[in-house]
């Protein structure tokens, strides 16, 4: 039996996705380059701590480790890279398109906003308690054989599988 890889176009301009090995290789390479050229340990969820630290005086945010660090520059690059991706791939335009959500759940703009805000809350709280996300635990932690990351990755994959199945195979 052959497993299906990259079987559908992206929501972004119906583009065909890059090969998984090229994509994953590039993502891994950036983590290596950050370490080798800038002595920086890759991880993206802490970017949101940096953002909070711009406006909050709580002790947790009032630390040099999260005060205007490299993460804000990297985040700027992330957004810029995505704009570039759209512009080079058929044009940039604001959109509410949400693929499977539109065909199976079908809420409008207000519903999507509430849905995304609620999901974002779970992410923000969850990644801080877990000590990392798909990049810090998933790529960096697994690549350096951290037991904490194996636990976190197993936990968020199992929870994601349960939630997606609940949403798209049971409820909607």
């Amino acid at each position, binding site marked *: 039996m052959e497993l299906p890889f*990259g079987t559908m176009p992206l929501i972004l301009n119906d583009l065909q996705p890059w090969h998984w090995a090229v994509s*994953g290789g590039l993502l891994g390479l950036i983590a290596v380059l950050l370490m080798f050229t800038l002595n920086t340990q890759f991880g993206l969820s802490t970017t949101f701590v940096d953002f909070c630290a711009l406006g909050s*005086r709580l002790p947790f945010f009032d630390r040099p480790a999260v005060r205007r660090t490299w993460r804000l520059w990297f985040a700027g*690059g992330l*957004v810029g890279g995505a*704009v570039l991706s759209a512009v080079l791939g058929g044009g940039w335009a604001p959109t509410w398109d949400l693929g499977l959500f539109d065909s199976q759940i079908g809420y409008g703009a207000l519903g999507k906003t509430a*849905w995304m805000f609620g999901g974002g809350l779970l992410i923000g709280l969850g990644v801080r308690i877990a000590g990392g996300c798909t990049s810090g*635990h998933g790529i960096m932690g697994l690549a350096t054989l951290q037991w904490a990351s194996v636990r976190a990755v197993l936990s968020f994959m199992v929870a994601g599988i349960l939630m997606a199945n609940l949403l798209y195979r049971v409820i909607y």
Partner: protein
Amino acid sequence: MNATVRNLLYVVYGLVFGLTLSRSGAADFNYIQKMFLFEDFQLYGILASAVTTAGVGLWLVKRYGRTITGEPVQIKGKTVHVGNLVGGALFGAGWAVTGMCPGPIMVNIGEGKIYALAAFAGVLVGTWIFGYFYFPLQKRLGLPSVFPAADAGAGKGKSAAVSGGGGC
């Protein structure tokens, strides 16, 4: 390397990372759901190849022991605690709900997906809630302290200030 060059490099790496997330499917709502539903294995392939590339590359960097500018390389270990599981479960649920993890939220904003702004706001508020309850959460879940040096003295004082409902 001066600060301007470093910051420029961070932006360039961010650009490549963002472009790749955008075009790989890793920031695509449908691909995330189909990964969780086992209908498309693109993202499992991406995670496996990213971990392999980073694993080999970082192993070489550690063996070499220094960065390109000659600084000693240090990779901090992640602390094992019950939060890995509890927080991981919350995050996984949120990932399936939004179809985005933290990096791809910023990528989706860049692509022009308006709803990603709501996810961004949600993560900010979630992060802030964690910051507000940091001291009790840290104690209860055995999380590593983010105040290593000040732990004994100032940490406790701050803890008391927070539970007293200090600023924001």
